[in-house]
Every structure is written in structure tokens, then in C-alpha cells.
């Protein structure tokens, strides 16, 4: 079923437009940062640029695109009435919604990988002239790329959860606009919670930031933060997925 989903939705203009917009925004932002470096307004190193570009992407553009894609991938099945087909052809409701979750995961990964590859290429092109210093320690390009990939990848995993919220909202309301706005606003609230004192999701959010801010990970007990973050992610994933599957299994499917 996942093969069918990939075949259907990775061949749409919407998917390629999202990829194209991601890269275009990155290029524009990168030239802005490079220009600021040129005129002496900033002094972005290779890693600084990667962190800035990733933050720029994961705070608004990336979650919005994941929510858009998730809402589109299920909303259009109601709109085109094609949701009936796999059910009539013998697939269970659980396998249908699981394939949508899988598709959202793949789309999240694809959007992230394309962005990161483009960002790394730009970083080498425009921001590789300086030594990379992290907390007064010089680090290699390989380490910088590794830290950036891990940090962004962790953020992508968090954002994937909000794509599933978009799927849930589509099942509940069958409106792509409601699903995108609802899931994206939930993401914004989640991020704002990160600034609240004693935020219960602190480890989940710190996994990403600590990786690109602390040179000595053992000093900040990074493995403990990572373990707590993984547990929190798994709990959220199980809760959202459980709810998503339960709602899809039990509700009437009303095609447009």
C-alpha cells in the first residue's frame, strides 16, 4: 500500500512545489546571510550557517509544508472519493491509515533530506572560509555536518508528529484548511511551550538544540537528555497514532 501512496503523491505538483519552495526559500535566506557576512553585519561560520538555516526552516516553513502535505494526501482521497477503493479492494481501515502515516513520514524525510543537502552544499560554497568553533573548540566539517544532520533530523521527527495531527483533523473535519491551520497552530503552541519554565517537553526540545550548541556532549549529560527525549517522542507517537487509528477505524467515512 505504501508503494501505491508514494506512486500517487510523489508524482503530484503539490509535492514537487513544496520541495521547490523549500529550496528557493533556503537559497534566498542563504544569500541574505552571505550578504550580511560580506558587509560585516554578521560572522556566520559553516556550522553557524547550518544552524541558522535549519532554524529558519524548521520553525515555520518545514512544519507548515509537512502539515500541508499530510492534509493534502488524505483530504484529496475524500475529495476524489478514492478512499473507497482500497477498502473495497480488501484492505483494512488500519492498513489504509497506516499507509498515510507512512507516506507522511516519507514526505517529511524527503523534504528534510532535500533541504539539508541543499543547505550543506550552500554552506560549503558560501560559508567554508572560516574555522568552525563550537564553545571555544575547533571542530571538523564532518563533525559540523553530522551535528547539523542529527539536530535537524530530530526536529523532523518532532514535526512528523504534527503531520499526523493534520491527518487526524482531516478525518474529523474533512477540511484541508482546518487540518493545516489546526495542526500548524498546535505546532506553534508546542514551540512556545518550549520557553515556559519547567516545560514538560523540555528534553524533547533540548535534544536538537544541545547537539549544535554544546561542544562537550558528555559534560551536559546528553545521553540522558536523548533517552528522555526518545521516550517522550515514543509516548507522543503512540498517543497520536493510537488516536488516529481509533478514529479512522470507528468513524463513518463520508466522501465529498
Amino acid at each position, binding site marked *: *500500500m505504501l*508503494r*501505491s501512496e508514494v*506512486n*500517487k503523491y510523489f*508524482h*503530484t*505538483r503539490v509535492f514537487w512545489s513544496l520541495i521547490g519552495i523549500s529550496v528557493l526559500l533556503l537559497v534566498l535566506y542563504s544569500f541574505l546571510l552571505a550578504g550580511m557576512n560580506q558587509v560585516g553585519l554578521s560572522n556566520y561560520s559553516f556550522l553557524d550557517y547550518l544552524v541558522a538555516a535549519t532554524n529558519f526552516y524548521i520553525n515555520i516553513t518545514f512544519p507548515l509544508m509537512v502539515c500541508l502535505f499530510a492534509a493534502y494526501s488524505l483530504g484529496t482521497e475524500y475529495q*476524489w*472519493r*478514492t*478512499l*473507497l*477503493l*482500497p*477498502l*473495497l*479492494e*480488501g*484492505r483494512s481501515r488500519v492498513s489504509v491509515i497506516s499507509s498515510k502515516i507512512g507516506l507522511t513520514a516519507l514526505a517529511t524525510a524527503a523534504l528534510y533530506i532535500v533541504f539539508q543537502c541543499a543547505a550543506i552544499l550552500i554552506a560549503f560554497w558560501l560559508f567554508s572560509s572560516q574555522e568552525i568553533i563550537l564553545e571555544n573548540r575547533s571542530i571538523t566539517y564532518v563533525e559540523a555536518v553530522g551535528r547539523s544532520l542529527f539536530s535537524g533530523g530530530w526536529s523532523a521527527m518532532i514535526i512528523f508528529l504534527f503531520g499526523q495531527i493534520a491527518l487526524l483533523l482531516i478525518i474529523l473535519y474533512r477540511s484541508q484548511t482546518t487540518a493545516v491551520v489546526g495542526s500548524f497552530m498546535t505546532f506553534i503552541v508546542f514551540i512556545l511551550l518550549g520557553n515556559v519554565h519547567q516545560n514538560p517537553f523540555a528534553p524533547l526540545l533540548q535534544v536538537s538544540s544541545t547537539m549544535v550548541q554544546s561542544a562537550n556532549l558528555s559534560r551536559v549529560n546528553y545521553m540522558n537528555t536523548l533517552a528522555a527525549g526518545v521516550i517522550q517522542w515514543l509516548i507522543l507517537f503512540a498517543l497520536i497514532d493510537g488516536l488516529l487509528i481509533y478514529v479512522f477505524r*470507528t468513524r*463513518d*467515512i*463520508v*466522501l465529498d
Partner: protein
Amino acid sequence: MTNPDTLILETQHLSKSFGEIHALKNVNMKVHLGDIYVLLGPNGAGKTTTMNLITGLYKPSGGHIRFQNSQINISGFIGGHAPVYPHLSAVDNLKQAFLISGNPVDQAQINNVLDKVNLRAASSRLAGEFSTGMQQRLGIARALLFNPDLIVLDEPTSGLDPEGIAEMRELILSMNIEEGITWLISSHILGEVEKIATRVCIIKDGTQRIESSLEDMHKNKNVFMLKTSSTQMAITHLPADVELLDSAEGYLMVQLTRSPSPSDLIKVLVENGIPIHEVSPVKHRLEKLYFQICYGTGDNNAAI
């Protein structure tokens, strides 16, 4: 075509409520192998709700849906418009069915069903560029891909022009005769139903009004036409439990209100020296029956 001994689908007291609204109440249907079974009723009667329940899109609030066995291969579409992926070509739409099922793509079978629905020449065009009729045919092509036992179509002629309606009718009939496919169709186009249906279920306000073979519905079992050369004498000698509905020179139309069979009536008349040349059951058109069943009158103004 129809095999009355082989039940392919049965609903028992099928009901569906949406909150306080009872959309469907106690619908009992029996679809036999080879039937062209038509759900008939006005808009909002509960036809699509019934179809949604049978295809599993809705969960019943009460009653049961039983298929002959778990191997029944069911296909089709609901809601008047065929489900197609508009951004994919006709061929790619059909390939999706193989990808979903996990079977290797069978190009020969794809070509075969495209030939059956007369879409082979347009197979590489995007489905979104198709006319409504072509999309309906593509929907049927997909339904035919895995040699289904039962095809469910909700309002398949919705939005079609007269040529499209005729094509759809021919397609359903030929697939029924040549491939033995059982069809479950909802419609409110009485003329079309009369041309294809073997069995009809009339639903109004969520309630089943009648379920019968079209042949039996056409026959008004108790109304007969008698041809006689002695009309007045025949009227005089009609038994008390036979109601005279109409008469003219040379014929009588009577309704047997209680027990006498047509042969009993003939016997009484012949014993009284009245020559009877012909006795035939009176057939009603589906339209008249439909309005009688739904609105208690054979006059379609009742529905307006």
C-alpha cells in the same frame, strides 16, 4: 441470468442513525447471483446510505450485512462520480489497484478492461481531463480489474448525457450477461431501471417500501383483463368478491379482491354461458407502481 438459489448478499434489519436522525430503518435486501439489483427512491430516501453501509464506509447502527462468503470480490463506486486520481493517466489509475493489492501489475488485464469500457485509445490521457462519462467508464474498468462477483454503483448515470446513459446501460447489461457479474445499483431514473433491473428495492424516508423482482412488480397479480363478446352479461354475473375496475365493448378489467383465482372466475362466467376469449394479467409500468408505493397514487403530481 439470475440464480435465485444463490444468495450473494443479504441485509437483515439494516439501520443507520445519525444522532437523532434515523436515515435507514430495517432494510432487508436479498441480492442473488446474476441479479441487476436496483435501489430505487427519491433523493434523500436512503439509497446512498445503504450503499455506504454495504461497502463498509459507514458502520451500521443496527442489523446485519451478510455476504455469501468471505471470498466475495466486491467493487464499484459511491456518490455518483467515479473515484479517479485526476493527476494520473487512465493506465496509471488502474495500476494503482495492483499496487494496493500487492500483486504484480498485469498490463494485459489492464488493456482487457480498457477495451471492455472502450477507453483503450485514451489510456495515456490524464483522468482529470476525461468527461464525466469517461470517468464513469474508467471507474467501471477499475471495478472489473479483479473479476469481481459484485459491483456496487451509486447513481452511475448521474451527470451523463443521453449517449452516456445508453452506453452505461449497455455496459452493465453486457457484463451481466457475458461475465455473469452481479450489479447492485442505486438510481432514481425509472425508465433506465425498467430497462435493466431484475430485482428492485424501493426505499422512501429511510424505510423499505417493497422488495421484489421486477417481473413480479410488473404483474399486478390480482388485476386481469378479460376479453368477451358478452360484456354486459359478464358484468351482471361477476361474483361478489370480484371488483369491476373498467369495461368497454369487448373487454372487462377486474380485480380479484379475495380468494377466487382467475380460473374460478372463468369457470363461473362460462357456466353462465358467457364466452371468454382471453384472460391476461394486467402489467403496470414501474413509474406508476413507484408513485403508488411511494405516494399512494399512480399520479406523479403527488411527488411535486
